[in-house]
């Protein structure tokens, strides 16, 4: 009896070997040169039945301190927002869950239409003309944007606001040598980016990427940053949070060429960092440079509407070394979770979500007995100064059952005393009171 999910009986196996005209399974592997065949058993842990497997994984999961155990104010790019109950129900439909990329459209109208609806939603939120079917995450889409900008402008320098998520900046720097790009970072001033500094750095650059809201939670003067980039002939790329776009202006409305970001906040579990979806949307000008899948509308033999993967001459399976990207797998299922969540919220719910986050962060500003690190308007995160290193404050607060947030000193020199506190609609004023009490206790 074999383990796993195999479904042949001994009799099946004998009949099949006979039909093939060989006497054993080993005969099928005779084409592998003997010297590179693997003899013996793999040294891996023993097989488990379903009961044992669940027990084993429950034991591992129990060693983690998740956001349902600790009262958590961790954010910094990934957030504990509510995922509507219907999301999981829809994502577990086997027709979505167990399908491959929709190469055969007549078998795949469901997912193709869903992606078309997702692309529409991303364009509505960002004010852009075209969206791809998703990118790997909110960081790799920044590298994608750089590649587009390089080919669109013929320039080879990328300007990143230092207030952009540090992991996004790291990914861009990892990709840059292969892309033939040089990366320049612009320091913040008082928690936000100065448009004049961007203007100076953007001279001769292919693109400027800036966040809204930024990594410190602060609102940037995004229209001025976009204008500074564009006046220098660089593409303006805004890295935005979908949950903010019910209350904050769409990047398309203030002249951005591209809008990118992490979609996790809308419809995905935190899941220790993935899988999530990145979104990438642009003006029409760049439609033939976008990486990854794009779904388009067409008609069938009867003249009825249908959907297909389109503009495939951009893609690796057609264009090979001349493709706009090597991307094939994307994050369709996670993006579907995003679409379902956006439909569940609707325009009204999305605005309320933003307002609730802002109201909670406003309350936190009043209650937390620590000074704000930056005197700027914020969206759903607040940076505060701690009297001792933030890492120590975090450790001591956690011992009291509260995770107070993210230590910005992890990424920024000179910020060892800055704690970034994130608020989502799942935290209550009473939770903030408790956070304030714990911070008062450990900081006194």
């Amino acid at each position, binding site marked *: 009896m*074999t383990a*796993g*999910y195999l*479904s*042949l009986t001994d009799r099946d196996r004998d009949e*099949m070997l006979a039909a*093939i005209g060989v006497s054993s399974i080993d005969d099928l592997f005779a*084409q*592998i040169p003997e010297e590179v065949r*693997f003899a013996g058993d*793999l040294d*891996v842990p023993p*097989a488990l039945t379903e009961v044992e497997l669940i027990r084993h994984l429950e034991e591992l999961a129990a060693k*983690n301190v*998740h*956001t349902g155990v600790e009262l958590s104010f*961790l954010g*910094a790019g990934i957030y504990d927002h509510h995922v509507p109950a*219907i999301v999981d129900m829809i994502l577990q439909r086997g*027709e*979505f*869950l*167990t*399908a*491959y990329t929709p190469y*055969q459209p007549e078998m795949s109208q469901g*997912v193709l239409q869903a992606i*078309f609806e997702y692309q*529409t939603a991303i364009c509505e939120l960002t004010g852009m003309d*075209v969206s791809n079917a998703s990118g*790997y*995450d909110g*960081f790799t889409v920044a590298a994608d944007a750089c590649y587009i900008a390089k080919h669109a402008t013929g320039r080879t320098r990328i300007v990143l606001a230092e207030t952009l998520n540090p992991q996004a900046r790291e990914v861009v720097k990892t990709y840059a040598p*292969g892309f033939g790009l040089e990366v320049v970072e612009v320091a913040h001033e008082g928690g936000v980016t100065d448009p004049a500094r961007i203007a100076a750095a953007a001279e001769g650059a292919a693109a400027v990427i800036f966040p809204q809201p930024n990594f410190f939670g602060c609102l940037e003067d995004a229209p001025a940053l976009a204008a500074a980039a564009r006046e220098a002939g660089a593409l303006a790329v805004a890295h935005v949070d979908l949950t903010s776009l019910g209350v904050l*202006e769409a990047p398309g409305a203030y002249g951005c060429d591209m809008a990118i970001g992490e979609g996790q906040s809308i419809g995905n*579990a935190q899941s220790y*960092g*993935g899988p999530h979806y990145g979104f990438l949307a642009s003006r029409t000008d760049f439609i033939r440079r976008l990486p990854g899948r*794009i779904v*388009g509308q*067409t*008609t*069938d033999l009867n003249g009825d*509407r249908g959907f297909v993967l389109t*503009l495939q001459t951009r893609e690796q*399976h057609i264009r090979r*070394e001349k*493709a706009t990207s*090597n991307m094939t*797998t994307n994050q*369709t299922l996670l993006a*579907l979770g995003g679409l379902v969540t956006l*439909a569940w919220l*609707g*325009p009204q*719910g999305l605005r*309320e979500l933003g307002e*609730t986050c802002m109201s909670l962060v406003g*309350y936190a500003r009043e209650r937390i007995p620590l000074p704000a690190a930056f005197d700027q308007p914020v969206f759903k995160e607040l940076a505060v100064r701690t009297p001792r290193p933030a890492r120590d404050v975090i450790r001591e607060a*956690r011992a009291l059952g509260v995770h107070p947030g993210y230590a910005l000193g992890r990424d920024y020199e000179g910020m060892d005393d800055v704690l970034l506190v994130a608020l989502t609609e799942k935290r209550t004023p009473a939770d903030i009171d408790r956070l304030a009490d714990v911070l008062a206790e450990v900081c006194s």
Partner: protein
Amino acid sequence: MQLIYEKSQAGRRAGRVPDYGLPVPEVPAELARKEPPRLPELAENEIVRHFTNLADRNFGVDTGFYPLGSCTMKYNPRVNERVARLPGFASLHPHQEDDGAQGALELMWELQQILAEVAGLPAVTLQPAAGSQGELTGLMLMRAYFADRGEGDQRDTIMTADTAHGTNPASVTMAGYRLVKVATTERGNLDLDDLRAKVDERTTGLMLTNPSTLGLFDEDIEEVAEIFHSRGALLYYDGANLNAVVGKSRPGDMGFDIVHYNLHKTFSQPHGGGGPGGGPVAVRADLEPFLPSPQVVRDGEAFRLDRDRPKSIGRVRGFAGPFGVFVRSYAYMRAHGADLRAMSETAVLNANYVLAGLRDDYEVPYDRLCMHEFVLSARALKKEYGVTALDVAKRLMDYGVHPPTIYFPLVVPEALMIEPTETEPKERLDAFIEVMKTIAREAAESPELLKDAPHHRPVRRLDEVKAAKEPIVKHAFGERPRVEAEV
């Protein structure tokens, strides 16, 4: 079927967000949203129905046989979905301190050990998001390795086979290398003479899928490795076809220095209609210092993320990788244990059985025993009856079978690339063989039946040329295109 936007009614809604009665700080006027986004406005009941109806118009492994070559459409166990949703995994914040994420780190470390054993290479990064990102990571590792040896300027070309997946040449370009293509022999192996003529001091490495996209194991793999290694170049293993050889032959033993895995193929992460995936990369010991940061390491009984990696290529994706994918793949491995070998043996048995059943009805361009998949050609059907591989694919839909991969690999005209996978029972394989025979008969007797196919799907054959010529990639609010009749 209507779009969700076409079902929208102003003022209707589903979800409600808590309002804690706190004052809402004002957004500075120049930063505030002026026009609300036109998101759908529906009751929750209608949202569920909309997506249920969309699901009904989609086909997955759960629906039926899905022999899409090189995609390894095996069964996706539901227990994996259940364990991935345990709150200790799903609600774990990626910035949680290591001491609060020991279970997750332990799982990742164990997964690295199993992957290393499968590849026959000692070090693994889990970070890459998909196979194609694994490829790019592999090429970045080559760049860093040769730069470290002072050979960075000298080596600027990468070789790929003419049978390679399109991702290989595309990755080469993205990584800033020049592509050199290598031919395949009539037997389906790499052409050693062509290789020897092209490998020189500028060669950085070779990217190869083994077994190849023809479903054939390269019988000269040791010579291939020797040709590259003797010039100091590296071998990259594209793991798209790893499902053929787990526990049977290890890429490290074949001579490969860098290997990527597709967790969504070999290790059953559901592909979700296009993603997510997972593309871990394994390397030989002297390439380990260059792996992306952070890296999961073990210190005694504890596990941690190591960020102190001065030679690392850097970060290729967020955090330590797509963790939910790791949970599912780890669960799949643990359900098999060392019987992962039986997984590959059965995949190869199933493929050869279907190949044997179809040998008399379709042209077999490389007539050998195959590995986990095989390639047929519809060239004869095209010549005699004007029926193409595309027509065969579309007709399969009418019989409730997902078509195989078609027109790939490029070296086979009218290619049909068939991969049954190990989780299919014999009855499914027999039924597929019968359907393929029937279609071959239909091609001769009533070719129009194939040319007009499909006949029994929610839509008829779709005009892909039109879609590309006049791209419509989002809903035009207010317009009402023709849709098929709906209740």
